[in-house]
């Protein structure tokens, strides 16, 4: 760039300006850019600014030193009771979490069978990779595996067909959150897409069904739906048959998220100009082809922030299973506080649970930002 410009020798006029057409590219004046300038203007622009900046720095400093001290420097990582912790340090007692870690992760899943949970976690990660990375080789085959994963995981976790059966009553802890969260996420997106398309359908019956479904789901709190799942759904199945409570919850959570998902996607669909539908029609694409190849890729891209928002909300809502007596990671934490050996450690427990959710949700949100950037094609 500069090479090309150098050939244009700037011709200077008598009063110090340049002749027309010979003005060189100059760097911006140093006073309007650079970090030093930014700090000067934004942090120390006036007496009040300076005072506020110093005050904020002081608070940040004391908060951070306290937190780091409590969480790491003065923390106890080993011990068999709260007293063991207090004997060595007056900060956080992480020994408690370490002591209960398997309970936090597996709930009441029978110990000799826990490898099945581990294996399904590993397989889950392998199933997520092809969904997230569009450029991976052999993606088609890998995606088939991803689609089969829910079945594989269900078999691994519940058992049968050669594996020892594990009742879903014994599911708990982080694993329960992941099972509900992943099921909800995996199924609410396709159901949401179908509902959103149905809401735009030319056929009045389809449209009315979709609209009523979405509005009913959105008009009722999730807790209510979970109570319905726990109590009422059993009226609808023939007496004697056992409709697993966890499955009922999975269905409710998925339907709940689908209702929201449908509205998020409808927003994306509405942003697609009519010309796109017309160009696809004129080309001779069938309805489902033009949706899949032309409309949805664009609509979903626009909807990414809303979709991920729904995912995150769903993931956090998995803790609501506590209302029907299932102990997820938060429930396990709560109940372990009752142990007299470890009394008064609620801060540690809640920080642990919060960190688990924070890192799960934060990675989802980072991924969505990355994806948005990647899919940006200059439009």
């Amino acid at each position: 760039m500069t090479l090309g410009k150098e050939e244009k020798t700037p011709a200077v006029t008598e009063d110090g300006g340049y002749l027309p057409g010979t003005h060189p590219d100059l760097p911006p004046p140093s006073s309007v850019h650079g970090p030093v300038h930014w700090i000067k203007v934004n942090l120390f622009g006036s007496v009040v600014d300076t005072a506020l900046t110093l005050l904020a720095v002081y608070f940040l400093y004391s908060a951070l030193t306290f937190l780091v001290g409590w969480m790491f420097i003065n923390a106890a990582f080993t011990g068999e009771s709260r007293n063991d912790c207090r004997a060595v340090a007056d900060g956080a007692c992480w020994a408690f979490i370490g002591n209960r870690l398997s309970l936090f992760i597996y709930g009441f899943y029978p110990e000799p069978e826990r490898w099945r949970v581990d294996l399904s976690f590993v397989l889950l990660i392998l199933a997520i990779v092809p969904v997230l990375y569009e450029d991976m080789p052999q993606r088609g085959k890998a995606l088939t595996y991803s689609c089969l994963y829910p079945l594989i995981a269900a078999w691994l976790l519940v058992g049968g067909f050669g594996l020892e059966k594990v009742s879903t009553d014994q599911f708990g802890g982080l694993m329960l959150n992941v099972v509900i969260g992943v099921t909800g996420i995996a199924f609410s997106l396709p159901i949401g897409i179908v509902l959103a398309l149905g809401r735009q359908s030319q056929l009045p019956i389809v449209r009315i069904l979709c609209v009523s479904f979405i509005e009913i789901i959105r008009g009722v709190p999730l807790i209510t739906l979970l109570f319905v799942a726990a109590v009422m759904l059993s009226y609808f199945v023939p007496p004697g048959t056992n409709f697993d409570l966890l499955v009922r919850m999975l269905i409710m959570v998925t339907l709940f998220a689908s209702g929201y998902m449908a509205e998020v996607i409808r927003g994306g669909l509405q942003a697609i100009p009519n010309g796109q539908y017309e160009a696809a029609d004129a080309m001779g694409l069938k309805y489902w082809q033009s949706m899949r190849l032309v409309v949805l890729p664009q609509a979903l891209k626009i909807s990414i922030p809303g979709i991920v928002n729904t995912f995150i909300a769903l993931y956090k809502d998995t803790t609501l299973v506590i209302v029907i007596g299932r102990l997820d990671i938060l429930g396990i934490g709560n109940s372990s506080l009752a142990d007299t050996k470890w009394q008064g450690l609620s801060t540690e427990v809640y920080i642990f649970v919060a960190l688990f959710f924070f890192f799960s949700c934060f990675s989802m949100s980072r991924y969505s930002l990355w994806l948005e950037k990647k899919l940006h094609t200059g439009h």
Partner: protein
Amino acid sequence: MADTESRTETDAQIESSKGEDDIIKIVAMHKWFGEFHVLKDINLTIKAQERIVVCGPSGSGKSTLIRCINRLEEHQKGQIIVDGIELTNDLKNIDLIRREVGIVFQHFNLFPHLTVLENLTLGPIWVRNTPKKEAEELAMKYLVRVKIPEQAAKFPGQLSGGQQQRVAIARSLCMNPKIMLFDEPTSALDPEMIKEVLDVMIELAETGMTMIVVTHEMGFAKTVAHRVIFMDEGEIIEQNEPHEFFNNPRHDRTKMFLSQILAH
């Protein structure tokens, strides 16, 4: 530019074919948007390889007319027969006709999430079941024809308006249509890009493509069209071959329209 020689040649072909190769036949066709009577008693016959320019004031129904030909709009009365197939509610007929008819829109309507090459291969691959490699070769052939093979890997958003419209033309041509419809293909373009698109259209005309072009580019109409149609308030007011149409308009509304459009 279309040399007069090639034109008289196609003229002769059209003379010689007496009606049997009417590729589009519109008979007593009416269309309403709700209560609004937008097209009134349209009768129009177009022969294979004929090139028609449609003009008329804004809102006169030009776009609606050509969009009826490939069923982007539905007519309520009368007949539209394209290449021997009548447009009815029968989805199979609509499909057949859409395979024969390409359309180029004012605002290009390229698919922004696909590269130029993918835009061009989408139709051949999914509608015509062409193998991917073959479809790509076909696409490159048409990109060369519209003079932008080097842009194949870019996304539409990275191209200029003129380039985008040429991609749109190539995309339609990839479907190997018998008829091309153009709805004001240059009116969303900056002046310096109009020529590059018109040049591509003129070259297309020289290949003998049947074309119906809605445009206000009167220079294009004069050199390329066999027939110019003037529409106002949903009716075909006047149609004639270009020389007569411009030098000797019969109808007062045509005269007024021409004086307005040629004034600037």
